[in-house]
């Protein structure tokens, strides 16, 4: 029973087991109780891994390495689990956001709650699996495992335009996933390593790198495949649409964690395996990210009148920063991106959570019909303001360090682009603060007063406070102790074997 002591496998198996038990017809009361375990165990596993990461001996940068055979050993496919310094912070992120989203979902009173929780648990298992997999095949596999429930949750439990949104998301994301799958297969076949194991692939390609042209083509394929998944402009239109329609827990998990898969794939797979492919693309990537994601989408975000749409667009915009860090092509920039991914995951999940809390009280997402919520719900207002500050990147919150590192790295790459990118900070301050002002402060609008008269506005309940608190505490903790995740990231990106890959030559 040695697998019971493997925290990585447990973090995947526990939610799946609970989902299975619910699916086999557990009564609702027990389903709900077990669901707490299904979301709690991954978080505990993640914290365990975090705690022990620095203390355990690392094997090619990984800890908790374990190999489980699934029958395709002849192809070099196997469930190989392990985390390195890049995967570990994201693994913890998945545990934290999953726990918060799960807690919120359990108490959300959604229709057909059992099936909703089941899908969410499958998604959670997939998310943990993504960051625990060393095998590239299973990396992809777990991504899809997490993605499919998203489509169903958007389609069934979604809000406005749910069917159209689910359809658009499915087709866009399938396209992105297929492109990246082909890229991964190409690396597998061309490397001659006969293995999907990332460590084996890396040593094979370090010993005998692919030709420069092949690297450039494959990197392009992966960049656009993964890029679609991360809403790289102009392939972003699924994101605000999907998030606008998605039920809040699904939006939290997708925008917070699952979307990071594309960036993670680029950092963990594409850059180290195809180091000569990146420079050829970095310039076009930087231009797309600055002018597309940051400036154009930033302006579009400012024009949004719908709160949830605005958060959706803002997450597209913030992904621009992440792409800029990648384009900067230095170990510092890459480390900044990983840091930023964690910070953004926490803050955007918090925003989606609070947006739904606002919606419960105002019965609308239209910001024109809100106002003055702070008078009636001061705790909600405090949380919301903090989340907006985090999202803008104020010091004290985790986002600040991520953005700072990215901008410093970008400065060394191109000063002009940095200037253009920094306008994004102003833009996000404008829309963030304006949203807070419209929703929370000022005089209540007539529409809001009508709603409030029909169902009295209460402050944040405990079932909403605890998930929000989990996320906010994590944001502040990392903001004040950036070393807690910067150290493992640093170990991974500045290791001698990795330095060449991330330095962009």
């Amino acid at each position, binding site marked *: 029973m040695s697998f019971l002591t493997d925290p990585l496998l447990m973090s995947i198996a526990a939610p799946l087991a609970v989902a299975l038990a619910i699916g086999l017809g557990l009564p609702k009361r027990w389903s709900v109780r077990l669901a707490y375990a299904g979301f709690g165990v991954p978080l505990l596993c993640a914290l365990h891994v975090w705690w022990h990461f620095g203390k355990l001996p690392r094997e090619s940068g990984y800890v908790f390495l374990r190999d489980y055979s699934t029958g395709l050993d002849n192809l070099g496919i196997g469930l190989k689990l392990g985390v390195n310094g890049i995967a570990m912070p994201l693994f913890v992120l998945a545990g934290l956001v999953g726990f918060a989203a799960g807690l919120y979902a359990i108490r959300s009173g959604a229709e057909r709650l059992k099936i909703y929780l089941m899908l969410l648990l499958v998604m959670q298992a997939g998310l943990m699996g993504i960051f625990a997999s060393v095998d590239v095949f299973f990396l992809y596999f777990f991504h899809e495992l997490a993605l499919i429930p998203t489509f169903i949750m958007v389609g069934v439990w979604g809000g406005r335009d749910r069917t159209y949104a689910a359809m658009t998301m499915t*087709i866009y994301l399938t396209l992105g996933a297929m492109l990246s799958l082909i890229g991964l297969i190409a690396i597998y076949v061309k490397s001659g390593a006969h293995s999907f194991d990332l460590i084996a692939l890396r040593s094979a390609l370090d010993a005998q790198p692919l030709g420069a042209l092949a690297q450039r083509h494959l990197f392009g394929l992966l960049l656009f495949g993964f890029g679609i998944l991360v809403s790289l402009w102009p392939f972003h239109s699924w994101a605000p649409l999907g998030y606008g329609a998605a039920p809040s827990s699904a939006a939290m998990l997708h925008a917070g964690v699952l979307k990071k898969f594309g960036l993670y794939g680029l950092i963990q797979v594409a850059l180290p395996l195809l180091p000569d492919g990146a420079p050829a693309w970095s310039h076009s990537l930087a231009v797309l990210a600055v002018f597309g994601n940051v400036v154009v989408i930033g302006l579009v975000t400012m024009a949004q009148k719908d709160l949830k749409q605005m958060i959706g667009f803002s997450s597209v915009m913030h992904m621009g920063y992440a792409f800029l860090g990648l384009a900067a092509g230095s170990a510092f920039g890459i480390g900044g991106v990983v840091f930023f991914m964690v910070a953004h995951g926490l803050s955007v999940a918090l925003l989606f959570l609070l947006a739904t809390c606002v919606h419960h009280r105002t019965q609308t997402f239209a910001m024109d019909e809100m106002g003055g919520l702070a008078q009636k719900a001061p705790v909600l207002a405090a949380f919301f303001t903090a989340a907006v500050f985090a999202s803008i990147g104020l010091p004290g919150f985790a986002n600040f360090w991520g953005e700072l590192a990215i901008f410093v790295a970008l400065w060394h790459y191109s000063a002009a682009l940095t200037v253009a990118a920094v306008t994004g900070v102003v833009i996000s301050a404008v829309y963030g603060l304006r949203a807070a002002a419209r929703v929370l402060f000022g005089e209540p609008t007539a529409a809001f007063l009508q709603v409030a008269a029909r169902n009295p506005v209460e402050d944040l309940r405990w079932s909403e406070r605890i998930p929000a608190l989990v996320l906010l505490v994590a944001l502040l903790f990392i903001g004040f102790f950036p070393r807690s995740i910067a150290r493992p990231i640093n170990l991974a990106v500045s290791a001698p074997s990795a330095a060449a890959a991330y330095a962009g030559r």
Partner: protein
Amino acid sequence: MDVSTLQHLAAGNTWGAIWPEMALGCLALALLALEIVLPRPAHRHIPTIAIAGQIAVLLALLLGFHGGYVGRESFNGLLRHSTAGQGMRVYFVVSSILVCLLARVSLAKQAMPRVEFYHIVLVVAAAMMLLAQSNHFIMLFVALETVTVGLYILVSYGRQSAPTLEAGFKYLVMGALSSALLLFGIVLLYGVAGNPALPGHSVSAFSYDGMAAFLAANPHNFLASVGIVLVLAGVAFKIGAFPFQIWIPDVYQGAPTPVTAFLAVASKAAGFAVLLGLFHRVFFPCAWLVVPVLSLMAAATIVFGNLAALTQHNVKRLIGLSGVSHAGFLLLGVVASASSALAVGAVYFYLLAYLLASFAVFGVMTHMAGADDSDQELEHYAGLAMDNPFLGAVLAVGLGSLAGIPPLAGFMGKFLVFVSAFQAHLYWLLAIAIGGVVVSIYYYFGWIRAAFFDAARPAGEGANRPERTPVGAAAGIALGALALASIVLGFYQGPLGRWLTW
């Protein structure tokens, strides 16, 4: 001819080698006898007996999988037994068991004779087994005709229904045409291989080995090339590959649903078993011709199948055309098998995943259909997941697996085919296949959307869908097992994976 010749011939007739086929044939005859012997009220047990008998054959096959005649020839070289052949035997028994299970549900809604249906299904399954193991062009043709004639009857089984008769007629005409093409191709090959003026001419040109030896000596002979193309055309009819797929939508729609499943799964798989056998054992010296022909066919099949399926509202037509696109993906694997060692295993895995997923979907379809079997529209599925979560879940797993979504078996099938295609450097075909997968998501998702996202229209507002059949115990177990197998095979292939990727 003296007695010793007969003795020699008889020594080659190793009947024990074809015991599964014999057992199915005897069972088929026994069903007819039982109908005469048993009193009328006991007739309803006959389908159960048919299914139980087949399960016994299946178990015996699995127990003796590696034993007996594997790796040998029987009947003086008419048949050749291999592990792949054993695998296909299992495949066809499993298909016919499932077809019988579906038929129990489906035929109950029609006023039709029952016993003959099971009889013919068993005979066709036995003939498919022989087809997959044939080692001789005469054997190939005879087995193929047995399959096809049996299917002519099955397709037009619902004699009272006009669409069924139309389907039967179309299938008859198209099937006859394809048989004629195949036969003409065989005759050309035989004629040219028997020409003593050519090097390597063969006295036993009907046998695969004799033909292969001749083609190896004359890989660029014009008449032989025409013969090969005609044989491939004949096989392409069976698998529903472009440009020989035109019969599929109408025939699939008109045929009773269990027969559609039989056509879609077993008949297609038999075609691919034949194609793989012919390609690797006979036509390989002419790979210069076969590979481009099959590549073009694969590309066109994927494009046509997916684009044509996009606009369908009748689910039987939809699954028929999606089956065309699956034939394209499988052809991609066959093409890749010219240079990739993985490809043959990938094709077999794909076929298995396709069987599991298709029968899950067809199983749901038989429960959805009313008395008019050809009237199965997407709108009828509205609200299915709400009213019957079990059927909804089985449908979602089946369609997801057909669409190739992880963690389901269909994804592994596509993945293995794509890896082998990449190993064979078929980049353009891969690009087309990727496009095909993305397009296919749209129509599979449309079906799932109908079942899961659309609310059922209240009665009286044009929601005149047929009454759904409640799921019985046997069908429920079978559907649950199919869905479970689709899920498990998606991430754990175990010994099967080791065997196929050897």
